[in-house]
C-alpha cells in the first residue's frame, strides 16, 4: 500500500476486501457445483474401530465443533469480551482453528464425493447449503485476516458466521446420526 496511513475506508482497502468476498463466494459456489455435478461415488472407506464411516464422520464433525467452541471462547478473549486474557490465547486461537479446519476436511471430502449436493430432504439440503457456506466464509475470514486493512467488523462477523455454519452442519449430521443410531463409535 502506498498511502501512509490507510484506513478501512480507503478505496484500495475496500477493493481488496471486496476481492476477499468474491473469492469466498466462488469457493462456496464451486463446492456446490462440484457436489451437484460430480457423479455420486459408491466406495465408502471405513476406519478400524468404527462401525461405519458415518460414525467416523460424526465424531470428526463433533471434534470440529468442540475446536470451534475453543475458537469462540478465545476470540471473545482476544476482543476483551471475556476476562482472563493470557499470552497463550492467540496461539490457542490460531492452532485450534487450524486443527478444526483440518478435522473438517475428510468429512467434507466424503460428503462431496459420496453424497454430493443433496436436495432430497430438508436436513440434507440445509446441510449441503451450510457446508458450501462454511468454506466460503472460512475463505473470506482467512483473506480478511491476512489483510490488516479489512474493516474491523469483518473478523467477528465472518468468524461468527463460520461458527454458526458449523453448528448447523453438526446439528444436521452428527446430531442426526447420534439420535438416529445412538451414540456409537
Amino acid at each position: 500500500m502506498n498511502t501512509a496511513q490507510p484506513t478501512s475506508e480507503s478505496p484500495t482497502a475496500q477493493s481488496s476486501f471486496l476481492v476477499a468476498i468474491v473469492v469466498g463466494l466462488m469457493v462456496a459456489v464451486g463446492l456446490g457445483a462440484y457436489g451437484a455435478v460430480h457423479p455420486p461415488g459408491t466406495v465408502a472407506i471405513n476406519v478400524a474401530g468404527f462401525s461405519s464411516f458415518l460414525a467416523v464422520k460424526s465424531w470428526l464433525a463433533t471434534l470440529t465443533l468442540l475446536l470451534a467452541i475453543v475458537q469462540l471462547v478465545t476470540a471473545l478473549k482476544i476482543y476483551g469480551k471475556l476476562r482472563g486474557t493470557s499470552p497463550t490465547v492467540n496461539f490457542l486461537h490460531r492452532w485450534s482453528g487450524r486443527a478444526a479446519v483440518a478435522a473438517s476436511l475428510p468429512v467434507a471430502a466424503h460428503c462431496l464425493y459420496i453424497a454430493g449436493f443433496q436436495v432430497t430432504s430438508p436436513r440434507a439440503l440445509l446441510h449441503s447449503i451450510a457446508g458450501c457456506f462454511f468454506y466460503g466464509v472460512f475463505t473470506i475470514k482467512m483473506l480478511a485476516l491476512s489483510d490488516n486493512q479489512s474493516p474491523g467488523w469483518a473478523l467477528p462477523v465472518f468468524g461468527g458466521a463460520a461458527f454458526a455454519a458449523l453448528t448447523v452442519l453438526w446439528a444436521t449430521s452428527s446430531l442426526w446420526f447420534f439420535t438416529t443410531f445412538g451414540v456409537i463409535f
Partner: protein
Amino acid sequence: MKRRSPLITLVLALGALVVILSLNDALIPNQAGAPAVPTAEPTEPANQPGDGATEGAQFPDEAVYAGKDATGELAVAVAIKGDRAVGYLCNGTSIEAWLTGSVSGSRVSLEAASGSTIDARFNGERVTGVAARGDEQYAFDLEEADPPAGLYRRKDDDSTIGWIVLPDGSQVGIENTGGTLKPAPRLDPETDQAEAVTGETR
C-alpha cells in the same frame, strides 16, 4: 501490509480438499473417468483424471441390473430400454419405491413421486450408484440380471406386487394394497404371470 500465515492456512486447507477429492477419483477404479453430467451445466469437476483410462461405458439398448445395497438390507433394480429407465427399491417388508427416469450416456437418473432418487453409472459391466430415500442413502453395485433374474411386476385392480429377482436366484418383493405393504408371495418368473419390467414400462 499483509500477514501471510492465514493465507498459508487457506491455501493448505483448500488444497488438501482438492487433493483428497482428486485422489478419490484417481484411486477408485469404478469412479475414474466420470464423464461430465450431460443434463447439468457442464461445469467440469475440477479433478477429471486423464482421458481414456476407464471411461464410463454406453448402456446397452435393453438390460436389467439388480443387486443389493452395501448393507444388504435393500434390493435395487434398474431396467434400461433406449434412453428410458425404470427402477425399483424394495426391502421385502416395509420399504418400496418405483422410480422412472432416463439414461444419458453412462449415467442413469431416476426419481419417484415420493422423492426417492437413484443416481448411478455404468462401467461397461456393472451399475454403481446411490439411492436416496428420505434421509437414508444406500450405496449399491448392481450386476446384469438376465432372465429369469430381473424386475417383475403384477398389477391387479387393488394391488401392485413388485419383485426383484437377483442373479443368484434369490428374490425380494412387496405387495402394495392401497398403500399397505406386506411381503410378496414367491414368484416363479418362468411360470407365474407377471410382467417383466423394462425401461419403457410405465
